[in-house]
């Protein structure tokens, strides 16, 4: 016996639901839609929902699904537990009171939710029945679904930007690659180059830098020199203020 059927048995309301024709969950727009279907098709009073019966019918519907899409299952299961919680609250001997001492029907909240949703469900139908461009009415030579239609430029707002971005994403196949280019120069290589130069004797810094033009090369070279200096492989000597700076190999200097 399935879990849902077991719960239904617990509530003793399994038989009436047998009379209901089977339905598929994907015909519904969520748990409220299912409940409204059950309530309206059996001409029940939304303010006075027979919770036990509705719960067992609801669980029967969930149970009848071959597989429940995890994406949507959550909301349906939350409603199942809400219904069972309602039932248990109704079974409590002492009625619930609000701040003013009036009796509170635990089902009131669900009824309000159902009525609110039902309103929009109706309005959605009303909207759908309105004559719609491209379906019921047509303007001169424009067929909205056609690609050849020239569309007016979107207004320059956030949505237009998002739309443009989405279109770009579509064009690149929904995949955005972030390219990281590896350095064309490495500090380590440049360190070797500096040492190579120095092995032929000390050099002036400005001459050395002039021989290696380009921003990237300059930065790498300076980093290489600093690194070599830190490692005590070379020394950097400036004999006077604002004077030229010489680089020397450590061994040569000592």
């Amino acid at each position: 016996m399935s879990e849902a059927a077991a719960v239904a048995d617990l509530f003793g309301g399994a038989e009436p639901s047998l009379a209901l024709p089977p339905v598929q969950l994907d015909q519904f727009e969520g748990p409220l839609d299912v409940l409204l279907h059950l309530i309206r098709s059996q001409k029940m009073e939304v303010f006075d929902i027979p919770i036990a019966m509705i719960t067992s019918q609801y669980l029967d519907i969930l149970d009848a699904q071959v597989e429940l899409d995890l994406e949507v299952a959550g909301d349906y299961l939350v409603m199942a537990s809400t219904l069972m919680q309602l039932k248990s609250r109704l079974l409590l001997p002492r009625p619930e009171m609000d701040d003013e001492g009036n009796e509170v029907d635990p089902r009131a909240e669900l009824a309000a939710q159902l009525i609110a949703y039902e309103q929009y469900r109706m309005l959605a139908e009303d909207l759908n029945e309105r004559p719609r461009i491209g379906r019921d009415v047509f303007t001169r030579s424009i067929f909205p679904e056609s690609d050849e239609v020239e569309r007016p430029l979107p207004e320059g707002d956030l949505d237009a930007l998002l739309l443009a971005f989405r279109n770009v994403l579509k064009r690149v196949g929904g995949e955005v690659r972030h390219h990281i280019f590896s350095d064309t120069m490495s500090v380590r290589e440049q360190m070797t180059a500096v040492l190579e130069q120095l092995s032929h004797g000390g050099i002036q810094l400005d001459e050395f830098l002039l021989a290696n033009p380009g921003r990237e090369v300059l930065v790498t070279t300076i980093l290489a020199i600093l690194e070599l200096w830190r490692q005590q492989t070379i020394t950097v000597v400036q004999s006077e203020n604002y004077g030229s700076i010489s680089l020397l190999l450590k061994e040569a200097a000592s």
Partner: protein
Amino acid sequence: MNTAGQIEALLLASDEPINLQKLRDMLADELDSSDIRSALSELEAHYQERGIQIVQVSGGWQFRTAPEHAELVHQLWEIRPQRLSRSALETLAIIAYRQPTTRAEIEALRGFKVSSSIIATLQERGWIKVLGRKEVPGRPHLFGTGKPFLKDFGLNSLQDLPDSAQLMDEDEIQNLVGNNVMQIQQGVLYETEQNSEASENTDDEENSQQGEVGSEAEETSP
């Protein structure tokens, strides 16, 4: 010169609905708004029984084919317009009637997830757009309808949304539920459960819920 004829020409040649201001700018100076309005109603009357109509949409006027010829006109193209899913329609309806609103509010009302693809589809058509952000934690997007919504659904303004006057807000629903629940409690007090279960057996199988839905909500509106 014949004003109605001029307007007719402008409306036919324009891709977009033309509003009163624009018509006035383009027509001779000495015409005021009431002249143009009367010319427009003259045209509207003239096209009443024809295959095309002059319709007021999105604050302007536009030539459109009459809805009764939809099937015929569709033969011009091979592609049929896509049907809108119920989730898309419900989401659109909630946004249209409650704007500005957030996705969380839509989901709370529907008691069901709103998928991102639906929001994206509605945005792509220009039916909904982001109006700003709500100043609550997470700063969620506030959605409202865009101009294409009015045009595509043949609405002149948001006031023309069907039945918007009948829509109950949360407080009205609370009162309605409160009153009804009280009546039920006074009537049968906690035997409601057994009663309705017993009476269920006498109910006929009734599966055509569609007609029922509308009348029920109308009875209950205050």
